[in-house]
């Protein structure tokens, strides 16, 4: 018996059955890849859309079945072997094998690492109490929804997109919600001050208590959370605490196998890691992004996961093209639809286009005079037309950008 009989082998193994993994498998088949494919996911679910978890799913506007990225039959028809509820613990690049938690090795021809990340946990006292939740997986949100009937007071730790979206849904459901943010404004990591101020005001108008520049000392409670204590000693009562303080990329097995990277796994323009025949895509992939001055960044978005997956499918099917997609993102809070194009991090000026009081306006971010990103609030036209400006890294005078009467597309030609 040779080694290939002893150990199951797949031409492509995809680790992580999320947005990136699903698209990698679907794109490989679309492009005619005929080899064997296995997808290994630690969650028990088939690939599903994550964005609704803090939006329509939490609000109970959409049942889980409507979040599935493909119907169950699709994966069978496309001959993708699904190994769900299983976690990859180790990678052996020399032997071209991965090892599952139960010790089973599986051989691969090419490996696609699409593991996203796990919710970052609090390290303070009380961080393991019942009633404290992240919002990363279906299981997280199911636990929150199960507790909700007996909840009146919610504290959300972290004023990022996920925390704010959850705060919007929960306040609409009638809960008294407090958002705690350590920075002096919400969304500080991903947007400029104009957007932060508008979003803070929206939440306050809906009765959410937004506290800025506050540090959590500990979570209070015996077995179940009863509140949160701030660094100054103030105590806030809560029967449910949501922690939205980012993710830790799930790359430990790859780094342990020798892959380069810190806070993610480093990949090149074809999404190759430093290990042979191992690709990484999505939230965990640290890449030089053309829309961030080629600085190494991780992007946490459906766009990035999907486009990187397509990049890898092209490489594997012999039609390599470097990853160069324009980043885009959306977020829904109350009746606000926020749409982002480009990457605003590192901007040195922002221009508000339109009157925030009309609840339809956009913010154009500039870096050394060039347009790098737009945040558009209920302003899809600017989102669509602004893309060309971002792609061109257009140099346009701030006064002109602020002229709401002139469509952005007319500014490019000028």
């Amino acid at each position: 018996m040779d080694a290939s009989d002893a150990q199951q082998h797949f031409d492509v193994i995809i680790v992580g059955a999320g947005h990136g993994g699903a698209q990698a498998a679907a794109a490989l088949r679309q492009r005619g890849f005929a080899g064997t494919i296995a997808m290994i996911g630690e969650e028990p679910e088939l690939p599903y859309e994550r964005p609704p978890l803090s939006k329509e799913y939490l609000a109970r506007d959409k049942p889980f079945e409507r979040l599935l990225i493909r119907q169950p039959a699709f994966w069978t028809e496309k001959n993708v072997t699904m190994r769900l509820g299983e976690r990859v613990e180790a990678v052996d690049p020399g032997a071209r094998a991965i090892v599952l938690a139960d010790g089973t090795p599986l051989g691969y021809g090419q490996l696609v690492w699409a593991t996203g990340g796990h919710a970052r946990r609090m390290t303070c006292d009380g961080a393991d109490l019942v009633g404290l939740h992240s919002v990363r997986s279906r299981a997280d949100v199911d636990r929150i929804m199960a507790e909700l009937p007996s909840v009146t007071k919610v504290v959300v730790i972290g004023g990022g997109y996920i925390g704010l979206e959850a705060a919007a849904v929960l306040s609409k459901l009638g809960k008294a919600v407090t958002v705690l943010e350590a920075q002096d404004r919400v969304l500080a990591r991903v947007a400029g001050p104009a957007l932060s101020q508008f979003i803070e005001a929206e939440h306050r108008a809906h009765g959410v208590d937004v506290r800025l520049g506050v540090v959590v000392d500990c979570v209070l409670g015996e077995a179940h959370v009863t509140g949160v204590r701030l660094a100054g000693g103030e105590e806030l009562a809560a029967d449910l605490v949501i922690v939205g303080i980012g993710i830790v990329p799930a790359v430990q097995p790859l780094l342990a196998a020798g892959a380069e990277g810190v806070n993610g796994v480093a990949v090149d323009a074809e999404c190759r890691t430093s290990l042979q025949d191992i690709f990484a895509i999505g939230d965990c992939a640290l890449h030089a992004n053309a829309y961030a001055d080629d600085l190494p960044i991780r992007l946490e978005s459906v766009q990035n996961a999907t486009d990187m997956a397509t990049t890898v499918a092209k490489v594997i099917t012999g039609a390599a093209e470097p990853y160069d997609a324009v980043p885009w993102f959306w977020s829904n809070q109350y009746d606000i639809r926020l749409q982002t194009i480009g990457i605003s991090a590192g901007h040195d000026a922002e221009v508000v286009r339109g009157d925030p009081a009309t609840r339809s306006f956009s913010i154009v971010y500039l870096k050394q005079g060039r347009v790098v990103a737009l945040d558009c609030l209920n302003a899809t036209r600017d989102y669509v037309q602004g893309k060309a400006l971002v792609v061109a890294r257009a140099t346009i005078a701030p006064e002109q950008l602020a002229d709401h009467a002139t469509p952005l597309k007319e500014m490019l030609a000028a």
Partner: protein
Amino acid sequence: MTAITVTTREGVEHELRPQDGISVMEAIRESGIDELLALCGGCCSCATCHVFVDRDPVGQLPPMSADEDDLLESSSSRTDRSRLSCQLPVSAALDGLRITIAPED
């Protein structure tokens, strides 16, 4: 039940009988046709659910919102028959609808 005929990019016709309440985008995805990325899941942010309406039997499609109109502008294959399928809720009124999946941008 509502019957909708979908022609894929390759010209294959599929007859769908989706339940009411979901969007035409979801109906296409559920049917196993693998041509719509529908990346934003119906949030009117991606335009990857673009279809052409070949026949709207009774003129029953909901009017196009300004957002849908603006987003369609991003597609190079837009025609006056273009719609975003995530913005079309399935109902008995759509019975007999015929659509074709638009080319990928």
